[in-house]
């Protein structure tokens, strides 16, 4: 089972994989929001990547 594609370079291509999202952790309990874009500002507790099957 595979999620995403390393060749996705545009929003339209990324939208084919709605189950691949990022969460910018303000603390380790942060769960929202989930974004399609990689965070653009520093995330104090790190970046959580969310992958869901089925695609």
């Amino acid at each position: 089972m595979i999620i995403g594609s390393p060749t996705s370079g545009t929003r339209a291509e990324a939208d084919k994989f709605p189950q691949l999202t990022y969460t910018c952790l303000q603390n380790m309990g942060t769960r929202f929001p989930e974004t399609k874009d990689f965070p653009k500002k520093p995330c104090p507790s790190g970046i959580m990547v969310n992958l869901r099957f089925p695609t």
Partner: protein
Amino acid sequence: MFWNSLTALALVAPSHALIRFGCSQLVVDRLDPLVEPGNTPSAHLHQIIGGNSFTPDMRPEVMDPAKLSTCTTCQPADDFSNYWTAPVYFKARNGTYKRVPQKGNSGFEGQNGGMTVYYMQNQLADFAQKSKVKAFPPVSDLGLYGCKKLTFQGIPHDHWLANLGYPC
């Protein structure tokens, strides 16, 4: 007899549950048995977690991790699945790259890198978890390759996807 009865009961009892567990890093390597079976190195670097039989070529006709693994980096000692993702690199102003460290989720701080794995019947927020699920079929039946032509127990791929939720 006792065990037979217990097994039968376990098979018919409805189950409303989800499982969440941590898995430490097994290895970080340029290997991708799903997309590029047998290629050493693969095009991309991955952090791999799970069973210790992980190997560059894991096609069903070559090996079965459920049979060959003897241990796992996942908390459930009998989860011999492997899971892998591409790691992230930080590009410094001087053009050099440094791998961004990976860490365990809250509650799994003791693990080395890795991931948190969930198996759910429904989405996380649905506490009822009522959808029916079946155990994964043997890997030779699951057919992780050539998915578009795939059938499972005679069910065409699209139908199989919708009903059983084993996407490719």
